[in-house]
């Protein structure tokens, strides 16, 4: 059986509108496709990245630096996919 892993990476929110509702819904939908637990940290606050409200509550404007932490059997793939989405500006650039 695969062991649970933890992968974390710092990313910057680059799209002009920040993590607004539609971007957040993309992030949450993608996070939910993986088994791993996914957490998003900004400053001192850590939220569940599978929760729309959690992600919105972080209120990440453009330029915010967030830490993405994936814990689970597919952590590496999950981290890779999410980081790619964030770096691509959620397809809004």
């Amino acid at each position, binding site marked *: 059986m695969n062991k649970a892993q933890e992968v974390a990476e710092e990313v910057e929110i680059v799209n002009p509108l920040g993590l607004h509702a539609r971007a957040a819904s993309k992030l949450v939908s993608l996070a939910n496709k993986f088994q791993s637990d996914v957490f998003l940290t900004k400053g001192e606050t850590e939220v569940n990245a599978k929760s729309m*409200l959690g992600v919105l*509550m972080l209120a990440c404007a453009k330029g915010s630096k967030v830490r993405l932490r994936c814990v689970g059997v597919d952590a590496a793939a999950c981290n890779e996919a999410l980081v790619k989405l964030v770096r691509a500006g959620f397809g809004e650039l």
Partner: protein
Amino acid sequence: MNEASGEFSASGGREAPIRVELSGVAASSGIGIGVAFVVDRRRVQIPRTKIEREQIEEETRRVQDALRAVRQQIEAIKGRLPHGEHRQILKAQQMMLRDPDLIERTETLIREELRCAEWAVSTVADEIHEMLDRADDAYFRERRSDIIFLSERVVLALIGENTPEIVPPPGSVVIAHDLSPADTAQLHRLQVAGIVTAAGGKTSHSAIMARSLQIPAVVGVAGVLGKVQSGEPVVVDGVRGVVIVRPAADEVVSREGERDRYNAFEERVQREHAFPAITQDGLRVVTRANLAITEDIELGSRYGAEGIGLFRSEYMYMNREALPTEEEHYRTAKAVIRRYTPYPVIVRTFDLGSDKPSKLVSFAKNEANPAMGLRSIRLALRERELFLEQLRGLLRAAVHGPLRIMLPLVSSIEELEDGLEAVEEAREQLEAAGMAYASEVPVGVMIETPAAALIADLLAARVDFMSIGTNDLIQYTLAVDRDNDDVDYLYQPLHPAILRLIRAVAEAGARADVPVSLCGEMAADPRYTWVLVGLGITELSMSPSAVPVIKHIIRGSQAAEMRALCEEVLASNSARDASALVVAAMRRRFPEHLRHGGGAASEGDD
């Protein structure tokens, strides 16, 4: 936001019946003049009672039921809207209602603090509100109102009440602190003249909704609620972002002139809605309306539709506690037939699936690919009793007028045969029960998959009519989910593959002498009218409000020029080229139609 200087004293202006000009954010263009309808939505009284330990399970279940009910309310509202940004917004709201953190926190409050469901939900909403309050960014602070609206809906669902709808008389200017996206969607149907809100900015969800539904709106007009009373005249200038309360008489006249020029075109088209759509060289095109039970049954006839080309029966399964009975199917269909006779009413049998769910039908959980999963006719054939129940109701209703039965998503001859067999079985059941039913009810299929389009000749040999559902046909042919922002740019109605499939179906129908109609959103879009008719489609079914514009285009055209454009378009290699050709031709001939036409047309080019 700011009052024009000198026209309004700082305090006590409430009594002065003088003109006030307020500025705000121009959120949706167009000019609306009407009588103010001030929305005073009292806050919901939230029951705050402690529960007993034994009730924990029940309260938790109530929360889940309420969340689901509200998701379905929003689904129903969403389903009535044309495609566009407003649907994305409602989708994000549905995601919030499925939020694991929200559900967990609510359940914790019920379990550990023994709070009743209403209390727990509103506490969680307050907590979220408070957190968003601390955000520096205005956008995130604006999301507070989304949360409040949603939690109010959930609490009302828990109490067992429906969210009170705002019902202003037609022609009103709605003045509110803020409107939820769901409210705005409802106002769309009520033909209000305009919307003014105190809260909100250009990015507020109600602003986006108003824009995409073409209701003139000015938002972010701070303090508007204290400056206008219901019944007073108001001008909403959604072009410049200005609201004029109690305008001077001569100003009203000049504003009306402006509005009228804007609306003149629209009105002319509306006035001629009942004229048949016959091209100048004599080709008759039938235009029908798409309708769901949740909508006003009169809509189609009001806009000059020649019957109902698509009755979405699946809405009879949503937002309710019990399955529709044979009797209900009978009564509903009969009511629609009565309204539209002698024109036909084409009822699509329930088109449900895990992406378009009803809590009354069990679906495969967690389908990896709902669009390709157990849905539509596949579900109907598996839930045969449900299907027979509906078919019996429809066969009985057909005694009262020209009803036709349409089977969705049929992709093979076997599926069609199974469907036809079910119709036969329903007939036998009625015969055995001694019920009156129509023996000759035309049965047709929707052409929604490339497979169905490619075997249209085989299907045509066994059905009485075919109807192309372009929304799904495009999705399946191009392998594009148009609700997925990453790929929706690939959703191209003029892709050569789509044009070829539509033509193939039209030709197969013509050869077999089986009528072919088209009932997707393409039918409502003035840009595509020439192409579709040019391809040989002579029956179009669309959202009712689009009927007059489409008919007007047809009356102003010649079939020969439509075919000529079509030939050119078919010769292009790409959707891009095809689209450029079509848009250029239609802009040249029908610029006003494109500007004022169906909502879909205002959402930019393909």
